[in-house]
């Protein structure tokens, strides 16, 4: 039987990180499964919450942005504008929040057992993705309610989900690594995300921003995510700024690459810093 050899030094203690990661893929699945079980066991109404919470927010935003502020919607029911902004935003923000907090909430594991730590943030976001998929129920309900038939673009939604997850996970990995050392991140992030709701086109369409500023506006990667999502569901190009999607794709690749790098560099000190 060929035996594994591990060499531990100050510089590297992981033998072969990516090989270990592959070996521990079951652990990744188990941790994700745990989070899912716990999430749906603890709450009485379970899955219903996943639908009810965004529904409530959608109603409030529709009232504020659509009814009170009377923002333009190019003939689309305003509820659908909010819906197609809120769902991708929720995915993005929860992935980022959950992954950035995942190391601290699993501190007992980090301090007692070795495995590639990146498993923790990656497994933690599975819950967010499942929640997102469940909230698709709302989309079907609302489209039926308003009698809107989605076009062929609707089939591209999985890619948008993937794009949003990549962007958020990259940032989440950086935040997670920082969070171990600087607990302030835990306080700061929710505030930033709160502001993000208004900076990003969650409650309004990107087309609201004047054309002169749209390029600048599109540098925010969430704009591309929301635009892509809106287009997939509503199929209206006049609501969005298409080049923003390109920005998001580039951002996803860069943020993931940087995120993994930062995370890997900080990784050896996690157990000591907790």
């Amino acid at each position, binding site marked *: 039987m060929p*035996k*594994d*050899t*591990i*060499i*531990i*030094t*100050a510089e590297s*203690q*992981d033998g072969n990180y990516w090989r270990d990661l592959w070996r*521990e893929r*079951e*652990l990744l699945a*188990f*941790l994700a*499964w*745990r989070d899912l*079980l*716990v999430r749906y*066991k*603890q709450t009485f109404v379970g899955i219903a919450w996943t639908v009810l919470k965004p529904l409530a927010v959608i109603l409030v935003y529709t009232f504020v942005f659509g009814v009170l502020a009377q923002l333009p919607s190019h003939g689309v029911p305003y509820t659908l504008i909010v819906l197609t902004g809120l769902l991708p935003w929720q995915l993005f923000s929860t992935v980022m929040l959950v992954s950035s907090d995942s190391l601290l909430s699993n501190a*007992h*594991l*980090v*301090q*007692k*057992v*070795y*495995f590639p730590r990146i498993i923790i943030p990656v497994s933690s976001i599975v819950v967010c993705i499942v929640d997102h998929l469940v909230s698709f129920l709302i989309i079907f309900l609302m489209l039926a309610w308003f009698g809107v038939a989605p076009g062929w673009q609707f089939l591209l939604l999985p890619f948008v989900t993937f794009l949003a997850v990549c962007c958020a996970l990259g940032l989440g990995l950086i935040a997670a690594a920082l969070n*171990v*050392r*600087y*607990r*302030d*991140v835990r306080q*700061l992030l929710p505030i930033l995300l709160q502001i993000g709701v208004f900076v990003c086109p969650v409650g309004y369409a990107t087309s609201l921003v004047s054309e002169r500023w749209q390029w600048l506006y599109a540098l925010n990667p969430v704009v591309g995510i929301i635009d892509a999502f809106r287009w997939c569901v509503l199929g209206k190009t006049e609501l969005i700024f298409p080049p923003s999607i390109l920005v998001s794709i580039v951002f996803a690749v860069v943020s993931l690459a940087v995120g993994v790098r930062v995370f890997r560099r900080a990784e*050896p*000190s996690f*157990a*000591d*810093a*907790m």
Partner: protein
Amino acid sequence: MSLAIRVENLGKLYAINRDGAPAASSLREQMARGFGRLIGQGSPAVPRPDERAAAVRDKEYWALRDISFEVNTGERVGVIGANGAGKSTLLKILSRVTAPTEGRVEIHGKVASLLEVGTGFHPELSGRENIFLNGAILGMSRQEIRKKFDQIVDFSGVEKFIDTPVKHYSSGMYVRLAFSVSAWLEPDILIVDEVLAVGDQAFQTKSAARMRELTQEGRTVLFVSHSMATMNQMCQKALYLENGRVSSFGTVEETTIEYQRDVIEQIEQGPWHRAEFTPPDAKVTLTRPEDSAATLLSVRICDRQQRTTEFLDIAESFEIEASYSLDRQVPDGVVPNLHFYDELGGRVFISLPAERMPGTKGVYSVRCTIPAFALNVGRYMAGFALSTFGTETQNHFDAQFCLRFEMKEADLALDLRRHGYTGALPGFARPRFDWRPA
């Protein structure tokens, strides 16, 4: 024999911040430092860089330094040392939970480390779910867990509650289940940090047996324990760490004895023996509750000739004499009790008189005769306490370890039962039981 673990010049430096813990610093603190650096030395609130560096240096310490040793495949090595000697840090580095600061470790084989039982147990999940989760965390594959599932459940004895969330478990059931998952790991190298003492007596016996079974299947084991008895039972070799350095590394017998010597020396600065104790004495802890009815006057140990001495012959009886005063009436009377310990404080036996002593005010003396061969050769400690066993037990005073004496065997030839054998006859007692040809 092939090599399983090689450790070379291993060192681990911890930096401790102001709170005394290597906790995370806050962003504000870092920004304050960065800002201080920007505005230079002008601000008195921010120490200059060189001062700051010196302050940081003061707060650093080597938890481990210059550690080198080798473990061959199949060897069972115990790691011993006082609290803070670096045992846990060493295990953490070997299990890759934390990185070393310097040096190198080479490990050949699949490692499983048990730094605690039940890592990752979630209170909301059922016993069944937690077995799978904990197993996966400890490095078992799903198939492996499925295969061993019945054994694990059977071993834990919680079959009935296996689908109940573990938050409803008693703490005993919880640790039993947690230990059981660990007990079925099958790595090449097992790293264990004192996780055996869980559950009730019966379960402890069972788990110790399982642990022995595990360690005897040709597995390499690295094991931390504070129990020298367990150590001697389970390990062949021992690594003795002292202040982060290797003090000795050899057979378990030699190393544990050396460790025990050092422990005694630390407890006792000055001569070890004490034949007489008269309070107050800074070296003896005398516990006496506020509502105590009695005061200890003196305790002494003497040989058959009534000479106070700390050296006794095992072939002769000896006496312990104590006097105390009762300061007020105790209706239930009082019971003096003598506690005998080995030199590490492990209890050897307790002796109580048949009759209780009167509870009227006054000064009393009691004597206890310890027969010959009741104690074997070695160092012992004795404590004297006075209690009242009524509806509630009350200790009027307790002078733990107040006497320290040594039993010797003056003349080996005197003991006819040796039949000329001159080697050691270990154990705490050498009772002379009846033997006859049957």
